[in-house]
């Protein structure tokens, strides 16, 4: 049971880490759109 919990927690940890990276890419995509739209 304890090892199952360990594996489950590790998997959730991985999901959070991947989500952080994807959130970063999403924010960068928004910046791309803004930079391209704004006249500089």
């Amino acid at each position, binding site marked *: 049971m304890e090892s199952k919990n360990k594996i489950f*927690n590790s998997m*959730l*940890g991985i999901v959070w880490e991947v989500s*952080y990276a994807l959130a970063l890419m999403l924010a960068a*995509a928004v*910046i*791309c759109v803004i930079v391209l739209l704004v006249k500089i």
Partner: protein
Amino acid sequence: MILRPRAEDIAVIGYHLSRIILGLGLTMLLPLGCAFLCGERGPFLDFLITIEIIFVSGLLMMQVCRAVYESGKKKASAYEKSIDSLDPNWMHGMIMVALSWLAAMILGAIPLWLSGHWISFLDACFESMSGFATTGLSLAQDLDHLSLTHNLWRHFTMFIGGQGIVVVALSFFVKGFSGAFRMYVGEARDERVLPNVINTARFIWGVSFTYLALGTAALWAVGMKNGMGSGRALFHGACIFMAAFDTGGFAPQSQNMLYYHNYGMEIITAVLMVIGAINFRLHYHLWTGNRRELLRNIEMRVLFVSILATFIVTAVGLKTGGSSYASGGFLVLLRKGFYQLLSGHTGTGFMTVYAEQVGKEWSDLSLVGMICAMALGGAVSSTTGGIKMLRIGIIAEAFVQDIKKVIFPSRAMVEQKFHHIKEVFLEDKTVRASLMVTLAYIILFGIGALAGMLCGFGFIPSLFESTSAAANVGLSCGITSVGMPAALKVIYIFQMWAGRLEFIAVFTLAGFLLAAIKGK
């Protein structure tokens, strides 16, 4: 008065260094096995010769050091314990680490040099240090026709160096001793994940192997979907994973990531690069249920803001500089601009553009954005290089504290806190330590930039390449090539080494050598 080191000190350092060298020799069994399985006779011999050299020199060194130590013990009884049971002190540990990395560079370069794909032994040493320090700058000739075995070794050096040569030795080859923590710190890992340093080293490997399995499988699937054979896709997947997670930047083909020109590969490697830039201590907390730490941790917050801020500068620079990436639309700017920026900030060095394009097409503003990103780096106790997010966060908090002291009434007590695993009060000594390392990095970037300018390159490209080497990134704007002056190659090797070890071990070695020459 400076005291000259005793022969016993040198013997203790040499003895433990020989153990690490022997451990390094054992890691070469992997490429040796690969050569045997792939039927690559020449590479098999290259690695067999190298392993023999390592074992003969390592065992010889061990015996000589033991004999010197024992004779010194009889004469002066400086140390009472036997050399096996003696715990190295801080000085021993730091010097061992500094020398281990130099030894790894030289020994790791032997099979590369024997392959004939590196013009000189210096070039092979450059490649080897670039691999171990997870930089990614390459001087390989005709990389596209390099044997699988040598290519695997190039990427495997990143996997070893990313986790740390001493961490490898502590985890698999060397029985634990209490001096281990001193060596662990010397490798720029000032944070223990678990109370025991051996368990910390094993946890680091646990995370690395888990991601190795997941990352390689994902890259393998994408490779096969794009028409690669299963064996080739697996090889490329494993190599690319090692270079991405360990924020290295080597790739099996000379065009680097541009060779694949594939969304899937770029997204997976981008995710792996970010994960590689996360502190192993944070990995531990996230993997044991403390998931709020991801949002609260100062490093993760600063990393998020820093990547986006430097990307704004780079994107604006690309647009105002009339780059084709900006005029090509949203996706092109994201794939060419942001990918390079992320690769630079996490210290990876993967490129989806040619190095010459960066040097010739990118405007100065966009290059300045990239230089800042490369200099800042990822989290401490991760596989990245550069100044690191924790230090930037601490310096920023110190600024806030000082501003508050000016604004608030003089009687008010101003106490600044930051969250890094737990709430930490900002102390002057913490700020001082962060500023010292930051200053040392800036000086190191400057030395390389000056050397580049003395060799005839412009200021911005020289600073770009120097920062890339010292922060262990691996992006290039075209300076790094076989034809560059040998002195510049040596300076970049020094930068990669000092930048990876974060100075303390290097300064200790310099002090030790000075004491050996001038001491009484």
